[in-house]
Every structure is written in structure tokens, then in C-alpha cells.
């Protein structure tokens, strides 16, 4: 069985498998908005880095849907 870690996503504790990337997390949580804004441990993540960043235990992730209405 895969090892798991705990991370906090939008203030809610979640369990994910080790070596999960931000890209995989986006798919898992169905954050399908192509223009999603992601914050990782208080730092903004460039979209092109989503596949590179591997989550660690206790990491904090914020998914923010952009507002494009005017």
C-alpha cells in the first residue's frame, strides 16, 4: 500500500499519497479551472511548476478560483 501524508487544503486536513504533485492534487480535487491560482505554504506557485512540486507532510495548499467578471 502507498504511504500517505497529511496536507491542509483550503484549511481542511486531507490525506494524500506520498509524492503527490500539485498537478495531481488539482486533478484529484477536480479544480478544473485552467486559470486556477495555487498557493503552497504561503507562496504563489507559477502554473508551469504544478507538475514539479511534490507535497510534503503538513504542507498547506490554497486553491483560489480567479474572478474574471466585471
Amino acid at each position, binding site marked *: 500500500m502507498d504511504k500517505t501524508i497529511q496536507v491542509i487544503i483550503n484549511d481542511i486536513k486531507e490525506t494524500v499519497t506520498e509524492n503527490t504533485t500539485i498537478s495531481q492534487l488539482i486533478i484529484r480535487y477536480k479544480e478544473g*479551472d*485552467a*486559470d486556477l*491560482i495555487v*498557493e503552497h505554504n*504561503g*507562496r*504563489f506557485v*507559477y*502554473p*508551469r511548476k504544478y507538475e514539479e512540486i511534490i507535497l510534503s507532510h503538513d504542507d498547506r495548499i*490554497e486553491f*483560489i*478560483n*480567479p*474572478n*474574471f*467578471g*466585471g
Partner: protein
Amino acid sequence: MGESRQTRSNTIVFCESHFMEIDQLSSQEVIRYKRQIVIPAFGEKGQKQLKRANVFIAGLGGLGAVSAYYLAAAGVGRLKIVDKDHVELENLNRQILYSTRDVGRPKTESAFEKLHALNPLCRIDAQKAEIRKDNALELIGDCHIIVDATDNLETRKCLNSVSVARQIPFIYGGIDGFTGMVTTFVPGDTPCLECLFPETSAATKKVGAMGPVPGMIGAIQSLEAIKICLGMKDLLKNTLLCINGMDMGVKKLNLRKDPECHLCGIQDQCGKY
């Protein structure tokens, strides 16, 4: 007496023929702006700086109606307002420049009237046009600040390209239902819109909107524009302010420039700043 004229490019311009020297404040102006001039960080100096300012407002919907109103009222010297739409009944729950009798009129025409009535000392250039890649540079012209009051990512990207190319501060605002967000992009100093949203797939969709939310965001955008005119340092730079009206949650997200951004990253590498 002043005069209003329609130009060939469908622009309505009001020219106040007794317009004072740009570096002077008339006695009327001193009275009109008294309540802000008394603010120590503002003063007569700030009022004169506002008078010299030339601000572009892209879009006259929920956000643009509010920022245009506050910027005209504050005494910005020139406002260039651009929108392609006509006033619709469904706009009136939030777009405070328009009345029921304006339904069917071009927004630029109605906005021009209201803003001119509010402050005839502010020169209003109102142009009914769609902002596109091929005309954004020309529309923005010699404006010092771009206030984004559009309703889609594509148009915002057109504005952002001009902001980066011409190094003009770009105040992004957006709303969706109970939530809204705002940040000030300053080329060379902050990321640009493209650093945040490199994808271009977002389709334009009509989102839910009620007055107080674009009211808050548009007011913050106009405050940012005023602060830029006054040369104030503490702008919403590198910070995305997100407001959730549902629970009154406010979050400040730290933004960073993407060194590989195909727009501002390339500019940096070429040493254009």
C-alpha cells in the same frame, strides 16, 4: 463655457475652455476637493498631481462605473473611458452610472453625461469600442494608468500586453458572485497578469454579480489609481487581495514574478526596463 463634441473616431470629448493652468487649482477646485486636500498625505500637491493624471478605464460595467465615478469625483484631469456595450436592464442592479431611462443607450454616452455632470472639470474622453489586441495600444494612447474593469481574460491580456510594453501600471479587478479580487501590476516591479494566467483557454462567461461586490472592488481600484497619481508607495503590489463577501473573509495572497514569463520575463532578459 465648455463644449462637447463628437469626433470621427466616435469619441465624445468635453473641453472646458476656461480650464485652469494644469499646475494651478482654481478657487472652485479648492472648495470642491477640500475634504481630500485636508488629508495630510493628499494636500494641494496631491490634488495637482491628480489634475495632471490621465487614466484609462477599460469597461464600464459594475467595476468601471464605480471607478470612473470616484476618479472623476476626485478630480483626475483626464479619464479615457471605453466600452462597446449598450445599457441593458439587467445591468442596473450594480452599474451605478446608469438609470432606467438609459436602457438601450451606449454606455459610453450615458457615462459621459453622468461623469460630466458630476465634475465638469474632469476631461472625459468616451469611446465606444471593443478593446482588442490590434487596437489596445492606440486606445490606451498616452494614459498613465490602466484600470481593468473588463469581464473576460482575453481583453485583460490585451491590456496587460500594453501595460508591459509601455510600462504602465495596470490595476486588475475581478468579481464573481460574492467574491472579488484586485491587485496592481507595476511593470518591472511586480509580476504581470500573464505570470498568473499563462493559459488562454478561459472562455468568457457571464457570472453572477450584485452591486456591493463590484462596488468594493471598483472602489479599491480607484483608490489604487489615486495612490499611483499621488506617488504613494504602499500599493497592492505583489499582493492579490481576495474578498469573500459571504463570510467577510479577506485574504492577501503573495504574488511573485515568473522569471520565465513569456511576456514580462522576456522583457527583463532583454533589459528593456
